[in-house]
């Protein structure tokens, strides 16, 4: 499975309290990432693939793997649709 990497030329980000705030440079729109979404975003570093993320999140949050898979797939699809990540 392909490693996931952020397309860092398309956004800028900062941490604000317990959130990660991402701004898309093409539109100026903001994206707020909290909880597992923030954790997943932080794990995307160009070396881990989707299954690695599922394993890490399921362990870190003591969550059911199928539930993590469903939520993560939806989140990754949204990030890809927004042009913020890609798989190598």
């Amino acid at each position, binding site marked *: 499975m392909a490693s996931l990497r952020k397309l860092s030329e398309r956004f*800028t980000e*900062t941490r*604000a*309290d*317990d*959130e990660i*705030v991402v*701004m898309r*440079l093409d539109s*100026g729109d*903001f994206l*707020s990432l*909290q909880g597992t979404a923030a954790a997943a975003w932080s794990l995307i570093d160009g070396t881990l693939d989707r299954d690695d993320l599922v394993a890490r999140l399921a362990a870190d949050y003591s969550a059911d793997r199928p539930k993590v898979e469903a939520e993560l797939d939806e989140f990754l699809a949204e990030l890809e649709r927004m042009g913020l990540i890609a798989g190598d």
Partner: protein
Amino acid sequence: MARLAAELTMERETRVRLGSVPQRLIDTALSELSWKISADEFLLHATGEHYFYYRRGEGITVERGPGADLSEESLWLNGSVYAAIASLNGLLPIHASAVAVNGLVYAFTGSAGAGKSTLIAGLGNEGIPMFCDDTLVLDLSDPERILCLPGHKRLKLAPDSLEMIGAVRGEKVSLDVDKYYSASAAGNVQTALPIAELIFLEVASEPSIVPMAGIERYTRMQDEHYTSQLFASAQRFDRAGYFSHLARLANALRMSRFARPLDKCLFVEGVKLIADYVSAQRIPDET
């Protein structure tokens, strides 16, 4: 207390003289009630042939031609022109009125008519002095803290606010604006002070103060008021630069929402709540 370099800059740069705006600037059409700004110049076209021109290092030139409404002149000078000069000198103007208590500034922001000046007058009745009205200028040069420059000290209050507060009615603000100059009953503060909090005014049936966190602090700072637009234009921000600017503010400023009823009968209840809130805070080093 020694005055800040930023204070001296604003004092020097806001000198006014009457004269003519450079013709090259008004050769290109600039409609009434609009402005343009470059890296070191600002031009505002008020009404008629009434122009305000500022160039860094040269102060303000006011051109009074036919149709100029001189009663509006101080409003322009203390509003858009003041904010533009701040912006062109690296200082951040925000659309806010403020009080000072325990050596800290509390700034209240909201759209026109949100009740900023009325609240400052109400806090004056509670013994809390005014810091500025309508435009607050922030000095961002110190990475450790954000300092507020003492600004204009005349409140602009509508007749119903004057009556509700029991404030003294001064001269009319302008021929066309139904507001009057007034003063805070607690006086005002003339020295630069660090900002404690930026408080957004809202309307609700019950008074409340709610801290803001996360992305809300970014989205609420995306003010459409001309003060924000002037600063962004003067600084030539691209989106990444603008985001970086917001992040600096969001990380350095506490922010809250202060909701209160506008009903005259409940006005004092809201004022007392926010008065107690700001009075209870202290400079961290002093606690």
